[in-house]
Protein backbone atom coordinates (compact mmCIF):
# COMPACT_ATOMS: atom_id res chain seq x y z
CA UNK A 1 0.00 0.00 0.00
CA UNK A 2 1.35 3.39 -0.94
CA UNK A 3 1.81 6.09 1.67
CA UNK A 4 -0.60 8.34 -0.18
CA UNK A 5 -3.24 5.63 0.08
CA UNK A 6 -2.88 5.69 3.81
CA UNK A 7 -3.40 9.43 3.92
CA UNK A 8 -6.35 9.37 1.56
CA UNK A 9 -7.97 6.63 3.59
CA UNK A 10 -7.50 8.67 6.75
CA UNK A 11 -9.04 11.71 5.06
CA UNK A 12 -11.96 9.57 3.94
CA UNK A 13 -12.46 8.25 7.47
CA UNK A 14 -12.48 11.80 8.77
CA UNK A 15 -15.24 12.75 6.36
CA UNK A 16 -17.26 9.67 7.16
CA UNK A 17 -17.38 10.40 10.88
CA UNK A 18 -20.15 13.02 10.89
CA UNK A 19 -22.30 10.89 8.60
CA UNK A 20 -25.87 10.39 9.80
CA UNK A 21 -25.83 6.65 9.24
CA UNK A 22 -26.70 4.01 11.84
CA UNK A 23 -23.44 4.60 13.69
CA UNK A 24 -24.56 8.14 14.55
CA UNK A 25 -27.79 7.03 16.21
CA UNK A 26 -28.05 8.03 19.86
CA UNK A 27 -26.46 5.82 22.48
CA UNK A 28 -28.16 5.31 25.84
CA UNK A 29 -27.06 3.68 29.05
CA UNK A 30 -28.85 0.59 30.29
CA UNK A 31 -28.81 -0.74 33.80
CA UNK A 32 -30.98 -3.80 33.46
CA UNK A 33 -29.29 -5.48 30.51
CA UNK A 34 -26.23 -6.49 32.52
CA UNK A 35 -28.45 -8.09 35.18
CA UNK A 36 -30.43 -9.83 32.50
CA UNK A 37 -27.26 -11.23 30.95
CA UNK A 38 -25.97 -12.38 34.31
CA UNK A 39 -29.18 -14.27 35.01
CA UNK A 40 -29.23 -15.76 31.56
CA UNK A 41 -25.56 -16.73 31.68
CA UNK A 42 -26.05 -18.81 34.80
CA UNK A 43 -28.08 -21.31 32.83
CA UNK A 44 -26.65 -24.07 30.67
CA UNK A 45 -27.30 -23.46 26.95
CA UNK A 46 -30.15 -21.02 27.52
CA UNK A 47 -32.84 -20.24 25.00
CA UNK A 48 -33.38 -16.52 24.44
CA UNK A 49 -36.51 -15.13 22.83
CA UNK A 50 -36.04 -11.73 21.18
CA UNK A 51 -39.27 -9.90 20.34
CA UNK A 52 -37.63 -6.99 18.55
CA UNK A 53 -36.49 -6.61 14.97
CA UNK A 54 -33.55 -8.79 14.08
CA UNK A 55 -30.18 -7.12 14.66
CA UNK A 56 -27.16 -9.04 13.43
CA UNK A 57 -24.77 -7.67 16.01
CA UNK A 58 -27.17 -8.51 18.83
CA UNK A 59 -27.36 -12.09 17.67
CA UNK A 60 -23.59 -12.32 17.71
CA UNK A 61 -23.35 -10.51 21.03
CA UNK A 62 -25.79 -12.76 22.87
CA UNK A 63 -24.43 -15.91 21.31
CA UNK A 64 -20.87 -15.03 22.28
CA UNK A 65 -21.55 -13.47 25.67
CA UNK A 66 -24.05 -15.98 26.93
CA UNK A 67 -23.70 -18.90 24.54
CA UNK A 68 -27.42 -19.03 24.06
CA UNK A 69 -29.67 -20.12 21.27
CA UNK A 70 -31.63 -17.13 20.04
CA UNK A 71 -35.13 -17.14 18.74
CA UNK A 72 -36.08 -13.97 16.88
CA UNK A 73 -39.76 -13.11 16.63
CA UNK A 74 -40.14 -9.59 15.31
CA UNK A 75 -43.41 -8.51 16.91
CA UNK A 76 -43.02 -4.92 15.74
CA UNK A 77 -43.34 -6.21 12.19
CA UNK A 78 -46.52 -8.02 13.22
CA UNK A 79 -47.92 -4.90 14.89
CA UNK A 80 -47.01 -2.87 11.85
CA UNK A 81 -48.73 -5.30 9.50
CA UNK A 82 -51.90 -5.30 11.60
CA UNK A 83 -51.86 -1.50 11.75
CA UNK A 84 -51.49 -1.17 8.00
CA UNK A 85 -54.28 -3.66 7.37
CA UNK A 86 -56.54 -1.98 9.94
CA UNK A 87 -56.73 -5.17 11.98
CA UNK A 88 -55.33 -4.00 15.30
CA UNK A 89 -58.39 -5.38 17.09
CA UNK A 90 -57.24 -8.85 16.05
CA UNK A 91 -53.88 -8.54 17.76
CA UNK A 92 -54.91 -10.20 21.06
CA UNK A 93 -56.14 -13.30 19.23
CA UNK A 94 -53.06 -13.23 17.01
CA UNK A 95 -50.73 -13.23 20.02
CA UNK A 96 -52.60 -16.13 21.59
CA UNK A 97 -51.55 -18.33 18.68
CA UNK A 98 -48.29 -16.62 17.74
CA UNK A 99 -45.87 -18.56 19.93
CA UNK A 100 -45.49 -22.27 19.22
CA UNK A 101 -43.08 -22.76 22.11
CA UNK A 102 -44.12 -25.19 24.81
CA UNK A 103 -44.84 -24.03 28.33
CA UNK A 104 -41.79 -23.23 30.44
CA UNK A 105 -39.15 -23.69 27.76
CA UNK A 106 -37.61 -20.22 27.38
CA UNK A 107 -34.81 -18.97 29.66
CA UNK A 108 -34.92 -15.30 28.82
CA UNK A 109 -37.15 -12.89 26.90
CA UNK A 110 -36.16 -9.53 25.49
CA UNK A 111 -39.33 -7.53 25.00
CA UNK A 112 -37.53 -4.22 24.46
CA UNK A 113 -40.29 -1.56 24.17
CA UNK A 114 -42.86 -3.68 22.31
CA UNK A 115 -45.50 -3.18 25.00
CA UNK A 116 -45.50 0.58 24.43
CA UNK A 117 -47.14 0.00 21.06
CA UNK A 118 -49.96 -2.18 22.34
CA UNK A 119 -53.34 -1.38 23.79
CA UNK A 120 -54.39 -3.06 27.02
CA UNK A 121 -56.04 -6.12 25.51
CA UNK A 122 -53.16 -6.91 23.20
CA UNK A 123 -50.61 -6.25 25.94
CA UNK A 124 -52.45 -8.60 28.28
CA UNK A 125 -52.57 -11.33 25.63
CA UNK A 126 -48.87 -10.98 24.88
CA UNK A 127 -47.91 -10.90 28.55
CA UNK A 128 -49.91 -14.11 29.13
CA UNK A 129 -47.94 -15.83 26.41
CA UNK A 130 -44.63 -14.59 27.78
CA UNK A 131 -45.50 -15.88 31.24
CA UNK A 132 -46.52 -19.20 29.73
CA UNK A 133 -43.34 -19.86 27.75
CA UNK A 134 -40.94 -18.70 30.48
CA UNK A 135 -39.20 -21.37 32.47
CA UNK A 136 -39.36 -21.05 36.29
CA UNK A 137 -36.54 -18.76 37.51
CA UNK A 138 -36.17 -17.38 33.99
CA UNK A 139 -36.02 -13.65 33.31
CA UNK A 140 -37.81 -11.15 31.10
CA UNK A 141 -36.57 -7.67 30.25
CA UNK A 142 -38.96 -4.99 29.07
CA UNK A 143 -38.75 -1.24 28.57
CA UNK A 144 -41.67 1.09 29.17
CA UNK A 145 -41.93 4.73 28.23
CA UNK A 146 -43.14 7.00 31.00
CA UNK A 147 -43.78 10.15 28.98
CA UNK A 148 -47.00 10.68 27.08
CA UNK A 149 -46.30 10.15 23.38
CA UNK A 150 -46.67 13.31 21.34
CA UNK A 151 -49.12 12.83 18.52
CA UNK A 152 -47.46 15.45 16.34
CA UNK A 153 -44.28 13.41 16.05
CA UNK A 154 -44.10 10.89 13.23
CA UNK A 155 -44.34 7.44 14.83
CA UNK A 156 -41.22 5.35 14.93
CA UNK A 157 -40.17 1.99 16.27
CA UNK A 158 -36.78 1.60 17.85
CA UNK A 159 -34.18 -0.95 16.93
CA UNK A 160 -32.17 -1.56 20.11
CA UNK A 161 -28.59 -2.38 19.23
CA UNK A 162 -26.41 -3.70 22.02
CA UNK A 163 -23.13 -1.81 22.14
CA UNK A 164 -21.99 -3.45 25.34
CA UNK A 165 -23.50 -4.71 28.59
CA UNK A 166 -24.29 -1.19 29.77
CA UNK A 167 -24.97 0.65 26.54
CA UNK A 168 -27.64 0.46 23.87
CA UNK A 169 -27.89 2.30 20.62
CA UNK A 170 -31.42 3.35 19.70
CA UNK A 171 -32.03 3.33 15.97
CA UNK A 172 -35.49 4.65 15.10
CA UNK A 173 -37.28 3.60 11.96
CA UNK A 174 -40.66 4.41 10.45
CA UNK A 175 -43.73 2.90 12.07
CA UNK A 176 -47.36 2.53 11.13
CA UNK A 177 -48.40 2.83 14.76
CA UNK A 178 -47.22 5.19 17.45
CA UNK A 179 -46.64 4.51 21.11
CA UNK A 180 -49.77 4.21 23.21
CA UNK A 181 -50.41 5.82 26.58
CA UNK A 182 -47.73 4.75 29.02
CA UNK A 183 -48.54 2.01 31.49
CA UNK A 184 -48.48 2.86 35.17
CA UNK A 185 -46.18 0.95 37.44
CA UNK A 186 -48.93 -1.08 39.07
CA UNK A 187 -50.44 -1.87 35.67
CA UNK A 188 -47.11 -3.27 34.56
CA UNK A 189 -46.89 -5.46 37.62
CA UNK A 190 -50.43 -6.75 37.16
CA UNK A 191 -49.89 -7.34 33.49
CA UNK A 192 -47.09 -9.80 34.11
CA UNK A 193 -48.44 -11.56 37.17
CA UNK A 194 -47.26 -13.99 38.54
CA UNK A 195 -43.82 -12.74 37.44
CA UNK A 196 -41.96 -10.74 40.06
CA UNK A 197 -40.20 -7.46 39.42
CA UNK A 198 -36.63 -8.05 40.54
CA UNK A 199 -35.05 -4.86 39.22
CA UNK A 200 -36.52 -1.60 38.06
CA UNK A 201 -34.67 1.45 36.79
CA UNK A 202 -36.08 4.78 35.76
CA UNK A 203 -33.51 6.30 33.45
CA UNK A 204 -32.94 9.97 32.74
CA UNK A 205 -34.33 9.31 29.28
CA UNK A 206 -37.72 8.69 31.03
CA UNK A 207 -37.46 5.05 30.02
CA UNK A 208 -38.37 2.51 32.67
CA UNK A 209 -36.37 -0.71 32.51
CA UNK A 210 -38.00 -3.61 34.27
CA UNK A 211 -36.49 -7.02 34.88
CA UNK A 212 -39.00 -9.73 35.76
CA UNK A 213 -38.34 -13.18 37.08
CA UNK A 214 -40.70 -16.12 37.03
CA UNK A 215 -41.02 -17.65 40.50
CA UNK A 216 -39.80 -21.19 40.95
CA UNK A 217 -42.48 -23.79 40.65
CA UNK A 218 -44.01 -24.70 43.97
CA UNK A 219 -42.92 -28.13 45.21
CA UNK A 220 -45.59 -30.80 44.72
CA UNK A 221 -47.77 -31.61 47.72
Amino acid at each position, binding site marked *: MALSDLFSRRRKDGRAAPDTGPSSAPVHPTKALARFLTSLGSRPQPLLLDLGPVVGTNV*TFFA*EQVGCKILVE*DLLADIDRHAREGKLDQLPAFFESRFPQEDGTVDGILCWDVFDYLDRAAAAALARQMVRVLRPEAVLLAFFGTADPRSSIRPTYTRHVVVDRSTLQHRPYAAARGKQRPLLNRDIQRLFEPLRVTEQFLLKTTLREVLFRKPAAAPPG
Partner: protein
Amino acid sequence: MWKRDEAVKPTSGQPTPAGPGSLGQQQAGGPAAAPEPRRQQIERDVVNIGKSVVIKGELNGSEDLTIEGHVEGKIELKDHVLTIGPNGKIKAQVFAKSVIVLGEVNGNVTATEKVDIRDGGSVDGDLVSPKVAIAEGAHFRGSVDMQRRTAPGVQGAAQRPAAQPAAQPQGQPQPTPQVAQPAGR
Protein backbone atom coordinates in the same frame (compact mmCIF):
# COMPACT_ATOMS: atom_id res chain seq x y z
CA MET B 1 5.97 -0.78 1.56
CA TRP B 2 6.80 0.35 -2.01
CA LYS B 3 8.17 -3.03 -2.97
CA ARG B 4 5.07 -4.75 -1.70
CA ASP B 5 2.92 -2.40 -3.72
CA GLU B 6 4.83 -3.24 -6.87
CA ALA B 7 4.60 -6.91 -6.14
CA VAL B 8 0.84 -6.71 -6.00
CA LYS B 9 0.37 -4.74 -9.22
CA PRO B 10 1.22 -7.38 -11.82
CA THR B 11 -1.20 -9.87 -10.33
CA SER B 12 -4.06 -7.42 -9.90
CA GLY B 13 -5.44 -8.15 -13.32
CA GLN B 14 -5.37 -11.85 -12.70
CA PRO B 15 -7.79 -13.80 -10.61
CA THR B 16 -6.71 -14.93 -7.20
CA PRO B 17 -7.55 -18.43 -6.16
CA ALA B 18 -10.89 -17.76 -4.49
CA GLY B 19 -11.90 -21.08 -3.14
CA PRO B 20 -11.11 -24.73 -2.89
CA GLY B 21 -12.39 -25.33 -6.38
CA SER B 22 -9.80 -23.08 -7.90
CA LEU B 23 -7.02 -25.20 -6.54
CA GLY B 24 -8.32 -28.19 -8.43
CA GLN B 25 -8.44 -26.18 -11.60
CA GLN B 26 -4.88 -25.06 -11.21
CA GLN B 27 -3.79 -28.66 -11.14
CA ALA B 28 -5.96 -29.55 -14.09
CA GLY B 29 -4.80 -26.62 -16.16
CA GLY B 30 -1.15 -27.21 -15.43
CA PRO B 31 1.51 -24.63 -14.70
CA ALA B 32 2.00 -23.77 -18.36
CA ALA B 33 -1.60 -22.69 -18.88
CA ALA B 34 -2.09 -19.11 -20.07
CA PRO B 35 -3.67 -16.65 -17.61
CA GLU B 36 -6.85 -16.07 -19.61
CA PRO B 37 -7.98 -19.71 -19.91
CA ARG B 38 -7.12 -20.14 -16.26
CA ARG B 39 -9.38 -17.25 -15.34
CA GLN B 40 -12.19 -18.76 -17.37
CA GLN B 41 -11.73 -22.08 -15.69
CA ILE B 42 -11.86 -20.48 -12.27
CA GLU B 43 -15.00 -18.61 -13.20
CA ARG B 44 -16.52 -21.86 -14.37
CA ASP B 45 -15.87 -23.28 -10.90
CA VAL B 46 -18.64 -21.16 -9.43
CA VAL B 47 -21.66 -22.88 -10.88
CA ASN B 48 -24.81 -20.91 -11.51
CA ILE B 49 -28.37 -22.11 -11.43
CA GLY B 50 -30.20 -19.59 -13.54
CA LYS B 51 -33.40 -17.70 -12.89
CA SER B 52 -35.62 -19.95 -14.94
CA VAL B 53 -34.36 -23.20 -13.44
CA VAL B 54 -36.58 -25.10 -11.01
CA ILE B 55 -35.12 -28.02 -9.11
CA LYS B 56 -37.12 -30.35 -6.91
CA GLY B 57 -35.20 -32.93 -4.97
CA GLU B 58 -31.74 -33.29 -3.52
CA LEU B 59 -28.87 -31.11 -4.69
CA ASN B 60 -25.35 -32.27 -3.85
CA GLY B 61 -22.09 -30.76 -4.98
CA SER B 62 -18.41 -30.30 -4.32
CA GLU B 63 -17.92 -26.81 -5.69
CA ASP B 64 -19.20 -23.34 -4.98
CA LEU B 65 -22.71 -22.72 -6.22
CA THR B 66 -24.86 -19.69 -6.91
CA ILE B 67 -28.58 -20.19 -7.16
CA GLU B 68 -30.78 -17.68 -8.91
CA GLY B 69 -33.63 -20.08 -9.60
CA HIS B 70 -35.99 -22.12 -7.45
CA VAL B 71 -34.91 -25.14 -5.44
CA GLU B 72 -37.14 -27.33 -3.32
CA GLY B 73 -35.86 -30.22 -1.23
CA LYS B 74 -32.36 -30.42 0.15
CA ILE B 75 -29.08 -28.72 -0.74
CA GLU B 76 -25.78 -30.13 0.43
CA LEU B 77 -22.49 -28.46 -0.50
CA LYS B 78 -19.97 -29.94 1.85
CA ASP B 79 -16.93 -27.65 2.24
CA HIS B 80 -18.21 -25.14 -0.30
CA VAL B 81 -19.93 -21.81 -0.52
CA LEU B 82 -23.58 -21.58 -1.44
CA THR B 83 -24.87 -18.21 -2.59
CA ILE B 84 -28.57 -17.62 -2.93
CA GLY B 85 -28.75 -14.80 -5.44
CA PRO B 86 -31.27 -11.96 -5.30
CA ASN B 87 -33.62 -13.93 -7.56
CA GLY B 88 -33.08 -17.23 -5.81
CA LYS B 89 -35.96 -18.87 -3.95
CA ILE B 90 -35.13 -21.85 -1.81
CA LYS B 91 -37.55 -24.08 0.01
CA ALA B 92 -35.10 -26.57 1.37
CA GLN B 93 -32.82 -27.72 4.14
CA VAL B 94 -29.42 -26.27 3.39
CA PHE B 95 -26.03 -27.66 4.44
CA ALA B 96 -22.82 -25.96 3.31
CA LYS B 97 -19.53 -24.52 4.49
CA SER B 98 -20.73 -20.95 4.00
CA VAL B 99 -24.11 -19.69 2.97
CA ILE B 100 -24.69 -16.20 1.59
CA VAL B 101 -28.31 -15.18 1.25
CA LEU B 102 -29.43 -12.37 -0.99
CA GLY B 103 -32.68 -14.01 -2.03
CA GLU B 104 -35.29 -16.04 -0.14
CA VAL B 105 -34.74 -19.13 1.93
CA ASN B 106 -37.51 -21.08 3.55
CA GLY B 107 -35.95 -23.84 5.59
CA ASN B 108 -33.21 -24.55 8.08
CA VAL B 109 -29.67 -23.52 7.20
CA THR B 110 -26.62 -25.27 8.62
CA ALA B 111 -23.15 -23.96 7.83
CA THR B 112 -19.86 -25.17 9.21
CA GLU B 113 -18.31 -21.72 8.79
CA LYS B 114 -20.69 -18.83 8.28
CA VAL B 115 -24.21 -17.79 7.41
CA ASP B 116 -24.44 -14.33 5.94
CA ILE B 117 -27.87 -12.80 5.31
CA ARG B 118 -27.34 -9.67 3.27
CA ASP B 119 -29.54 -6.61 2.86
CA GLY B 120 -32.64 -7.74 1.01
CA GLY B 121 -32.06 -11.38 1.88
CA SER B 122 -34.74 -13.33 3.69
CA VAL B 123 -34.58 -16.47 5.81
CA ASP B 124 -37.50 -18.21 7.46
CA GLY B 125 -35.93 -21.04 9.36
CA ASP B 126 -33.35 -21.95 11.94
CA LEU B 127 -29.68 -21.12 11.51
CA VAL B 128 -26.90 -23.31 12.88
CA SER B 129 -23.43 -21.91 12.33
CA PRO B 130 -20.47 -20.69 14.38
CA LYS B 131 -20.71 -17.32 12.65
CA VAL B 132 -23.87 -15.53 11.68
CA ALA B 133 -24.15 -12.11 10.09
CA ILE B 134 -27.51 -10.52 9.49
CA ALA B 135 -27.47 -7.20 7.72
CA GLU B 136 -29.85 -4.39 8.47
CA GLY B 137 -32.63 -4.64 5.94
CA ALA B 138 -32.52 -8.41 5.94
CA HIS B 139 -35.52 -10.44 6.98
CA PHE B 140 -35.07 -13.27 9.41
CA ARG B 141 -37.48 -15.33 11.40
CA GLY B 142 -36.29 -18.32 13.30
CA SER B 143 -33.65 -19.32 15.78
CA VAL B 144 -29.90 -18.87 15.72
CA ASP B 145 -27.64 -21.50 17.21
CA MET B 146 -23.98 -20.47 17.11
CA GLN B 147 -22.11 -23.48 18.37
CA ARG B 148 -19.22 -22.58 20.61
CA ARG B 149 -15.96 -23.72 19.11
CA THR B 150 -14.31 -24.08 22.49
CA ALA B 151 -17.09 -26.04 24.10
CA PRO B 152 -15.52 -29.23 25.43
CA GLY B 153 -16.96 -32.51 24.34
CA VAL B 154 -19.12 -30.99 21.66
CA GLN B 155 -18.96 -33.00 18.49
CA GLY B 156 -19.76 -30.82 15.61
CA ALA B 157 -18.61 -29.26 12.45
CA ALA B 158 -17.86 -26.02 14.24
CA GLN B 159 -14.95 -27.67 15.97
CA ARG B 160 -13.21 -28.56 12.77
CA PRO B 161 -10.22 -26.37 12.13
CA ALA B 162 -10.99 -23.90 9.39
CA ALA B 163 -8.69 -24.71 6.50
CA GLN B 164 -9.12 -21.32 4.91
CA PRO B 165 -11.25 -18.23 5.30
CA ALA B 166 -14.75 -18.25 3.91
CA ALA B 167 -14.57 -17.68 0.21
CA GLN B 168 -16.47 -14.59 -0.83
CA PRO B 169 -17.79 -14.77 -4.35
CA GLN B 170 -16.34 -12.00 -6.41
CA GLY B 171 -18.67 -9.24 -7.39
CA GLN B 172 -20.92 -9.78 -4.38
CA PRO B 173 -21.64 -6.75 -2.21
CA GLN B 174 -19.81 -6.80 1.08
CA PRO B 175 -21.86 -6.87 4.28
CA THR B 176 -22.05 -3.64 6.17
CA PRO B 177 -19.43 -3.51 8.91
CA GLN B 178 -22.00 -3.19 11.66
CA VAL B 179 -23.30 -6.68 11.02
CA ALA B 180 -20.05 -8.46 10.50
CA GLN B 181 -18.49 -7.61 13.81
CA PRO B 182 -19.87 -8.50 17.20
CA ALA B 183 -20.88 -5.47 19.16
CA GLY B 184 -19.11 -4.40 22.27
CA ARG B 185 -16.20 -6.70 21.89
